[in-house]
């Protein structure tokens, strides 16, 4: 447990892992474990909007599994293209470090989210409006994403110093990740869970395309 906290602290401070060169897989798995634990912690708190009594406890379980799923799913879908692009731009040799930086940034993001979870609980306790609850969670995700960005840029600094191509690749990664992530978040709705509806893992008829929905909204406003 102390070791766990120690590693989490190292992760947040951006201290390089001492055994990264010797045991790359182990370090990656540890970072992934942080991602799952941090995400599940925040997700569980996020799912308590409808209460935890009776069947509403399922929303807690669903949300706790969905936050790590959102990040890991987006990551795994975007990774193959990023790997090929890294190879093509001649920086394949750094990919181990790149992979660690990417997973560490997401793990850092979920640790920040987990640290913000008490605010969510406090907000739920003081305000019962569903739309406001969604908005509040969106705000906290934005804060955590900024922290993740900060983390990623810090980890990329030595890579960029070695080869400026990494700066371009970092931007490409953000475009890929956000493009897939927005749709992934849309597909995995509901995260908070409308208390008037029974809890479901995926909302029925919720499939669709986030970009098309937003585009239609803008279109309908423009042509009103």
């Amino acid at each position, binding site marked *: 447990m102390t070791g766990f906290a120690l590693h989490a602290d190292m992760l947040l401070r951006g201290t390089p892992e001492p055994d990264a060169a010797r045991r790359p897989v182990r370090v990656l798995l540890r970072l992934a474990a942080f991602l799952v634990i941090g995400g599940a912690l925040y997700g569980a708190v996020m799912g308590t909007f409808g209460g935890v009594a009776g069947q509403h406890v399922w929303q807690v379980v669903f949300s706790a599994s969905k936050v790590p799923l959102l990040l890991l799913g987006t990551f795994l879908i975007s990774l193959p*293209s990023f790997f*090929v692009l890294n*190879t*093509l731009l001649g920086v394949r040799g750094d990919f181990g470090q790149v992979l660690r930086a990417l997973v560490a940034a997401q793990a850092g993001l979920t640790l920040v989210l987990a640290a913000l979870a008490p605010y969510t609980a406090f907000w739920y306790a003081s305000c019962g409006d569903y739309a406001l609850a969604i908005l509040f969670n969106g705000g906290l995700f934005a804060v955590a994403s900024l922290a993740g960005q900060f983390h990623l840029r810090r980890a990329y600094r030595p890579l960029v110093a070695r080869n400026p*191509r990494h700066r371009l690749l970092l931007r490409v990664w953000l475009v890929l990740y956000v493009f897939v992530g927005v749709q992934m978040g849309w597909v995995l709705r509901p995260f908070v869970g409308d208390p008037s509806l029974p809890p479901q893992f995926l909302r029925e008829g919720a499939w669709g395309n986030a970009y098309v929905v937003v585009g239609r909204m803008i279109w309908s406003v423009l042509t009103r």
Partner: protein
Amino acid sequence: MWRWIKELDRVLRGEATRLSALKGGTIRIPAIGLTVVIVLLGLLAGFCVGWFAIFNRTPPEYRQVLASALKVPLLFLLTLAVTFPSLYVFNALGGSRLSLPSVFRLLIAAMSVTLAVLASFGPITAFFAVSTENYSFMVLLNVALFGVAGLLGLVFLLQTLHRLSLIDEMTALPPLPSAQPDAGKDAAQSRGQNDPAGALDRVPGHVLGAHVKAVFRCWIVVFALVGAQMAWVLRPFIGDPRLPFVWLRPRQSNFFEAVFHTIQSLFR
């Protein structure tokens, strides 16, 4: 098979197109082996594109998945077959000394880059195919992803051609004095200047003749235009869910007009 995948890896890493590797004036790759890899990557990419017909039709149309998987490799091989003769002839007219097999190997290498990128986009395509009902969005997404993959392949083609003509010039001139390693620079940097690490890196220094450059630009334009229209001839790749399944649609309209109409219909 594994050996051929390793060859693809060499091409992607840029090892096959280093100046030192191109010394013989040709790119040394097994054309047949890479063609097999290209077909496999195309099958994979097409398979992912075809998922839309499984998740957005009732009952699911599995024939579309098969059709898409077969059509993507076909698209690239047919484009190659149509453009190869003229590319070779104009290349020869432009004054390049590349032989027929060299041009062929070069095109196969560029195509393997395109298909590797395209196949790596597969998970993204499949994910959107599963979660999207909007046909226009899928069409435009695929046009964009195919465009990016094609663009990277063409950049590879251009840079490799540039390197090959550099080699050509070097062998035509009397041997240059070997470059003195600069004591102030580290080894990686000096290597990076003479022999770039990446497949897409630009080799600085020599400037090509204007007519050779013009030929290169024509290569790119012809290749892209034929590829786009070939995709239109081979449609449907995704399959409009409102229309019944067919292996090929009748001749009408063209690629660019269709993309324009799809953009118009996206948010309706």
